[in-house]
């Protein structure tokens, strides 16, 4: 192991071109992370032709640079404009944007960047430890455990949303939005109204862009002024970013829990970073005693999703490298890059090309550190966006957002969908219905339904079968604990 690690370090430092590829990957990753709707999968797909003439390790360095930087870039727009650069950054909007409104954008960016870096390093560390025993861990999660995992995400976030009744209503709306489209199990088109566009259901990016970016720009239009209503550009200090880094270190427990959640969920194929970041957020809101400020600009609400968001990359590489089963769209395209360069994922790759695997791990580590450093330095200038006059910001952000919604699958229907969800998001803000529970329910809907149906087929219709799966039972106990703790707290508050 150490021999391979040293070989990988020596390879990386042997040629200045390697560092140039890493820097290029980081720059592209940051750019694609910052622009809503693009994301890592698009960046890797677009850079793929460039790697044809490269050595496999150099191609890995370029792609690793992108993967390590993209989620850190996405946090910037999530915090400053309430527009998630990539879908998993949506959870960062919940507390990141209110912090910007309070004139604490530098603090939020510093915290997000540092949490993202620590989460990323943690995920890679786990990857190194787990790769030899990856097969056993991935097999823990069968359909019953997946269903319980989704249920845990939904319940824990709903109880932490403040208004439980409205949180549950929003979750139901989210589930019904998730039902829209062709149902593969039953073979029926549901809630499509005969529309061809709705046959595939709503794509997650236009929904997020609408609910967060467009709805918030509508709010800003009604309110007027700039995003930040306190202080001025002269009050921006570099020390704000340093304070953010300190806040991350102070809340190390949230960083660790977020990183564990991110790595675990990242390792489960098909679940994805959105679930990881939202579950980390809801878990942080649950385990924190003083959680009233969550959703109103609590720095812990930025640290939790960001640490999970970057940690998921390490986790996601476990099934990708060990079995050739990609955990996300980004990993699927990366898998294509590996195969294209003659590296066939599986146990053989882990044994015969161990040094190449370490090149990838070191690249991701380098990309995480480089992107974090860049964002921390650039934060001083980036936060000025929050002081721009809303009349200039609103048309620019709406244009970029709708363009981002279109860019995902080049469908004009996505632009209209984003506008519709913008209207829905604004109405939810206006009438105090939490948007977070709607989003998490939408994200978890297909996972819940698919695994529920598969489980019931496995158990031949006997629901008690869920109790025979150990992982499912543990996850169910977590859900029950989340509900019980919340009910107990409410009861104690009422008595007090």
């Amino acid at each position: 192991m150490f021999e391979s690690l040293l070989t990988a370090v020596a390879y990386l430092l042997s040629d200045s071109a390697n560092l140039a590829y890493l820097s290029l990957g980081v720059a592209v990753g940051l750019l694609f992370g910052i622009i809503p709707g693009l994301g890592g999968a698009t960046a890797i797909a677009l850079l793929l032709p460039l790697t044809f003439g490269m050595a496999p390790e150099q191609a890995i360095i370029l792609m690793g640079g992108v993967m390590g930087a993209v989620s850190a870039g996405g946090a910037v727009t999530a915090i400053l404009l309430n527009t998630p650069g990539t879908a998993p950054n949506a959870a960062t909007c919940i507390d990141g944007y209110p912090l910007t409104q309070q004139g604490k954008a530098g603090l939020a960016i510093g915290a997000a960047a540092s949490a993202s870096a620590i989460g990323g390093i943690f995920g890679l560390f786990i990857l190194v430890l787990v790769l030899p025993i990856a097969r056993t861990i991935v097999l823990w999660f069968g359909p019953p455990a997946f269903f319980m995992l989704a249920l845990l995400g939904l319940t824990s976030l709903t109880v932490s949303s403040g208004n439980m009744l409205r949180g549950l209503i929003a979750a139901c709306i989210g589930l019904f939005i998730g039902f829209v489209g062709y149902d593969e199990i039953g073979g029926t088109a549901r809630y499509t109204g005969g529309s061809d566009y709705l046959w595939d259901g709503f794509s997650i990016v236009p929904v997020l862009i609408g609910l967060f970016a467009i709805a918030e720009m509508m709010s800003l239009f009604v309110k007027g002024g700039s995003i930040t209503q306190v202080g001025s550009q002269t009050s921006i200090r570099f020390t704000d970013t340093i304070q953010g880094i300190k806040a991350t270190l102070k809340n190390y427990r949230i960083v660790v829990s977020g990183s564990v959640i991110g790595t675990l969920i990242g390792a489960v194929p098909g679940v994805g970073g959105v679930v990881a970041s939202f579950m980390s957020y809801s878990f942080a809101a649950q385990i924190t005693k003083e959680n009233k400020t969550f959703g109103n600009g609590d720095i812990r609400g930025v640290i939790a999703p960001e640490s999970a968001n970057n940690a998921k990359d390490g986790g996601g590489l476990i099934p990708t490298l060990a079995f050739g089963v990609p955990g996300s769209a980004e990993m699927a395209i990366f898998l294509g890059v590996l195969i294209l360069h003659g590296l066939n994922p599986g146990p053989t790759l882990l044994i015969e090309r161990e040094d190449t695997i370490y090149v990838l791990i070191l690249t991701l580590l380098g990309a995480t550190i480089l992107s974090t450093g860049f964002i921390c330095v650039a934060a001083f200038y980036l936060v000025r966006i929050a002081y721009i006059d809303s009349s200039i910001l609103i048309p620019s952000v709406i244009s970029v957002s709708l363009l981002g919604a279109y860019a995902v699958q080049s469908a004009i229907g996505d632009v209209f969908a984003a506008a519709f969800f913008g209207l829905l998001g604004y109405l939810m803000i206006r009438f105090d219905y939490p948007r977070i529970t709607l989003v998490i329910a939408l994200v978890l809907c297909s996972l819940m339904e698919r695994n529920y149906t598969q489980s019931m087929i496995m158990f031949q219709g006997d629901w008690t079968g869920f109790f025979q799966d150990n992982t499912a039972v543990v996850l169910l106990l977590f859900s029950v604990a989340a509900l019980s703790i919340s009910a107990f707290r409410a009861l104690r508050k009422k008595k007090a």
Partner: protein
Amino acid sequence: MKQPRNIQTSLIVALLILMIAISVLVTAYGYSGGSGIFPRFIGWVFTGLAMAECLVQLKASMSTPATGQISTTSDTDLRRGKVRKEIKGFLWIGVFLVLLYLTGFLIGIPLYIFFFLRLAAGKSYKQCTTIAVVAIASVYILFIELLQYRLFQGTLFGG
């Protein structure tokens, strides 16, 4: 404390949600076999929750007049002003969508930015033109030149 009219609005919203819940539940019964099981279950939960919200709001609206809170003329004016701004905001998004649909991104974006800045924000012609040109130049360089995207051309131009 909330204004009586706000509570009435919340009740109307709750009733609207209840209607939506009932309609999606009824629709779910139209799906055969496995496709309907989960939506039906969630539909019943949704309807129950929406009914609970209606009751909460009904109770609140019935108890509020007893507090004797009366909205003043300035409150009403403020509320009307806010609603007017909200309608304006949605109209601007509607205008942008129509522009995009008809003329595509490369023409729609600068037109929308120019007219929004001129008519909604009252900026000078010079400012409006500069910002619109910078915006579309950035979009062109990034999406067309660098990323080689084929942006929607608009139905008027064969898109």
